[in-house]
């Protein structure tokens, strides 16, 4: 009994990777919904992290996200990923309007075989929840996006997830969001948005 409990409370590298990638799945979904990039009717409600999350039902998008997240999970296990960026481009001008950046700090000493770290799943979920909440709350300051927007064109190439350019925004404002850590992976979130001066 006692051993079981200990195993549940501890976190292995693999477990951490899956937690983080899961977060990305919901996080990206959240962004897509909150920012109105996909039509709201194409989302469905799912209970997660003690919150009601909206997840897309769009098959193409789902497929793409599954691919991305799966790949991400592998990379997380191998400490490859340092940063995940979701870029929102204007389809008219191909201008970067918003840039969601998730920096990932990996504990490189952690391997598949090493001892699991002590951190309760609940604590991690609490942290994740606050990040998701913050993503939702960014509507307070983010500019309204026209409907003619799509996520990064990378979406169209789900198999090959290539590193795109840094996609920085000119004249932008950056807001740092909360971070969470699984003790193995630490995710720092940040959003940058373009300042619009016109009326």
């Amino acid at each position: 009994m006692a051993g079981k409990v200990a195993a549940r409370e501890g976190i292995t590298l693999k477990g951490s990777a899956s937690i983080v990638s899961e977060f990305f799945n919901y996080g990206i979904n959240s962004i897509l919904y909150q920012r109105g990039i996909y039509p709201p009717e194409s989302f469905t409600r799912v209970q997660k992290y003690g919150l009601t999350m909206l997840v897309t039902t769009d098959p193409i998008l789902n497929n793409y996200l599954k691919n991305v997240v799966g790949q991400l999970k592998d990379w997380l296990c191998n400490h490859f990923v340092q940063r995940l960026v979701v870029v929102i481009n204007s389809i008219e001008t191909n201008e970067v309007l918003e840039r969601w950046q998730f920096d990932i700090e990996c504990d490189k000493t952690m391997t598949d075989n090493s001892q699991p770290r002590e951190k309760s799943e609940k604590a991690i979920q609490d942290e994740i929840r606050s990040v998701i909440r913050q993503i939702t709350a960014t509507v307070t300051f983010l500019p309204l996006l026209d409907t003619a927007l799509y996520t990064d064109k990378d979406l169209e190439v789900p198999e090959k997830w290539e590193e795109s350019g840094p996609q920085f925004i000119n004249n932008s404002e950056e807001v740092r969001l909360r971070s969470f850590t699984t003790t193995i992976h630490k995710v720092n979130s940040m959003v940058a948005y373009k300042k619009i001066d016109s009326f």
Partner: protein
Amino acid sequence: MAEADWELSKENVQPLKQGRDVNTLKDVLAQHEALSHISIQEQKQAFETEIRFYSGNDPLDVWDRYIKWTEQTFPHGGTDSNHLALLERALKLFLKDDRYYSDLRYLGHWLKFVDYCTDPLEMFDFLNSKGIGVSHAALYVAWAERFELLGNTKKAEAILQEGIRLNAEPVEKLQHNLRHFQSRVFKQVVASIAEGTNENSTLEPTQQRTSLGDLKRRGQKRAMAPVKRVGSGVQSLNQGLGHYVAPAQEQCGTFEVFNENRMGTQLVEELKSTEKQWSTLPSTSAKENEIVPGPWNTSGMRVPRRSSVHAIPFSTVLSAKKPDFKLYEEESSHEETMTPRKIEPLFTPVLSARKPSKELNPLTRVQVQNCNENKEVSMYSKDQIYAGLREFSFEELRAEEFKKKYKARMKEQEDKLLKLKQEKEEVEQLIHMAELRMKEQREHSQPETQQNEAIHDPLPCSAITTREFGTDINLSERNGEDSDRNGLNEIASRLKNANLSDCTDTINHMSSDLVTCSQMSDKNPFDYLDSGSRDCNKEDLEYEAQFMKCADNSHLSSVSSLMPPFLGLPPASAAFNIFDETAEAEIQNKPPASYLKLNTQWRRSGILVPSQHVLAEGICSAACDDLDGIEPLNEDHFVSSDYPNKTLGPYPENTCDFSRGAHLVSTPFHRNTLTDDQENSIKKNCIDGSKNALSSLSPIKESLFDQPLHAKKLSPIQEASEDGLSSAATTSSSAVSSSSVGGLGTMSDLNVLEKLELGHLNSCETNSMNSTSDNPWDLEIRKQLLSSLLVPLSSFPEFHVENGPVPTFEDGLELTLGLQTFNIKLAAVHEQYRVFYGTNPRLSLSRAIIKVHSHTVPWDFYINQQLKMRLGSKFNNYFSQNHSCYLFENGCVTVDRGKNCETLQGLSQMWETVPEALVVFLTLDLLALVELMHTAEIVHGGIAPETLVMDDRFYEGSACPSGDGLVKLTDFAHSLDLKLQSGVVTFMKFPTMQSLSNKELLFGCTNAYQVDLLGIANTVHFLLFGGEIDVSKQGSLWTLGPTSSRMELLYLELWNNFFEKILNTGGASSVSTLSDLRQTVTEVIEPDYEILYNDAFTLMPHD
């Protein structure tokens, strides 16, 4: 956890199209603390102020920033943000200004405003008809979105099409929008078809009951309501206020078959039909007949109490409040429809309807009754009170105005500090000179000096004086104090030596020094630097102080709080000698007590006048001011008014006074004027005083300083403070003060002398004050400038003061000036002076130019002396060293002695055309001369052939022309000393300018020096071509006109070059331009200098 705020209040933050600044958002959301609230209020106030005092050419900018700031700072929206009111205010304001109609910012605000409206479509109609933003795609996109929201996709598309047709910017956006819009509509249609909701389930419109619709009667004898109340049962749908629910097809999924051809024309026509229909803004809310809060008694009618039924005629009510919208009138409505009614009974029963007179306005009786409202002129800037969103009180407006001026002054002070540094150097020079002179004089008159010093013991005095100078000139240069001390000591004793003849006079002088010093030394340096702004401060402060007194009885009793520090300014105490006992006690070098006593007494010299019937007088002038559009309550009124202020409520216990004060507080301020005789008596006293004081001094001083004293107003603080004091203390003080009016006596002598001293010390202040004036040649200004000189003109040996009036100058008379006798011959008559040629009958050769001025300002002499001082040895080359001045009681005469007095103009008449070689040399000379003048920071202003006089050397022909000048400049009547008058901005009045035919040349002028360059150009042109200069603009360059041509010019290229350079100086400094030009000319003539020289000077026509 810093993010917690925005995170937690996402429901309370309105999303903005342009996003929000996170830092502002955080600040604002954390604003429960009172601190940030205050800062927001301050910013708001700043915007409000800026709106009122904006002077740029883009007034929308302020509003734009204000609105955006409001959006960012009030994320909740809500009433405290006033966003809607702000938008409405701004939009209405700029509705008058059609230059903003195509401004994107303006349109953006309109679109925000539309969101607040209950009927946005109406608002879009309005915008379209007014032509606001019709060239921007944003308008059409927003408009189409509105239609789409309402489900009217047809119109939405038409709007987008219309935008594309009109080529609204950017068209791509419209096209893009149109594409997406069409795809959305298509999807909707497909979806609705798929769901099969496409059933025609609507009732016919006629099948609905109509509210308030008339029904057809049934039955022949008695009218009965029909059973069937729809369709044919309804009498008519078109009559009455029939309101039936429109059978909106968009409500149920029907859609009409799209007909492109029809739509294209019909909707455009619809759009057009709305044009010119709107005269006012459509209402934003569904409410009608809203009463806009405004001032009371707009009807201006006093309601007679006993008038029977109609106290206010209906027509006046109508005219007073016309509705914003046009009333639709049917044509038939003009016909009187007589409805059968009961004839009113002869007597009104007790329970009858209320009388309309009472209904009209229950507050009428309470309202201020003022019949001649139209004649009333508000003495504050009434238009600005409601200019922004918030109401400003007129005091606030005044304060802003004042602050603005204050800031400007502060800036000036900084400039002045720099000047003072220079001044200090000059003073040091003078001190050296004085020292030298002292040594000489001491050898001559040692016993007398000793005696003098024995009397006065000048040590404390000089010490204090030094201190004062130390602060005066530069605080940071304290180490220079010692030399100052020595130097001033010397100066003080020099002054004594100058007036050795009258010992008592000197005593007076010295004592006044002491008094001045005692007061100067105890004020802080900031005060002193601030003294430039004092002139406008003091009236202000005093006025405020009086307000305080009137409003607050307790203040009256407390004597010491007479000058409360308003606006955080330092109490402007210094120059007008407010007696401060405590400060006095702290002074180390305390002057003898007797002097202090004098000091306190003279301050009663002001007159206290009961303010009975004076209010009415100022109105007339105030009205004029107001009509001229001048802000009536600015400080200039106070500065320019000669009237001394008076205490408004001299007796604190007197209820009459108090109520009068209260009246003044609560009503627009009228400048109080004194009656003529009162004013005169003051002036007379002042003059008497000065005359008494000065009579024993040399008469020059009197005539010099007399005038400035007249011009100088009595410093009102003196009377105000002292009278306030005394009146508060004793009720008999008015008697005292009135008696002191007559007997100013010797006390005022001191006062006057003191002022003279101050005049010297504060010379810089007065200068900077004056330089801002419009007319730099104004006699008063010159008088003040001269009176504030460090070295009075009378100290020069060439300056002669004559008793009696100016002798008659007439053609052919023999005249004696000083030691010389002239035969005079009239040469020219100008507005302010006449010019004579004088020949000395005894010495046949010596001739002179005599200028007779009708005023007593020896400006010519001053400029000449300044040139002499600033140029040193170079002076003699180009200017008349035999310049002397005779000052009479009613005029002054300047004499330029020389061997001949031929002007350049006269000279040129000897030839048909002046030889080019000569012109070359004259030009060289002229350039050098003006360059010299400009290095001395003096502008001649009237360089012309008439003012240039040939030098003696020219006729002798022996002097080398390169070293000495051939020409000399005379007539400095229009000269400016830019050291004193740096702020000259109008060049139009320079004589050079007025002689120019093409005034456009003037617009290129950036400083006064350029005026002289044009003068040179004009003169050279005259010599070369024999006529006025005629310029025209080719491209960006000024060139000579076609008339300026002479066939046989050797140096055509040189001259072209010359004129091009001198006419197009741009922003280059005049000195460098002149030396450049001189260089060019010299280089060109260098090869054949000898030949030219011979050509020029052997062809002398006079022999």
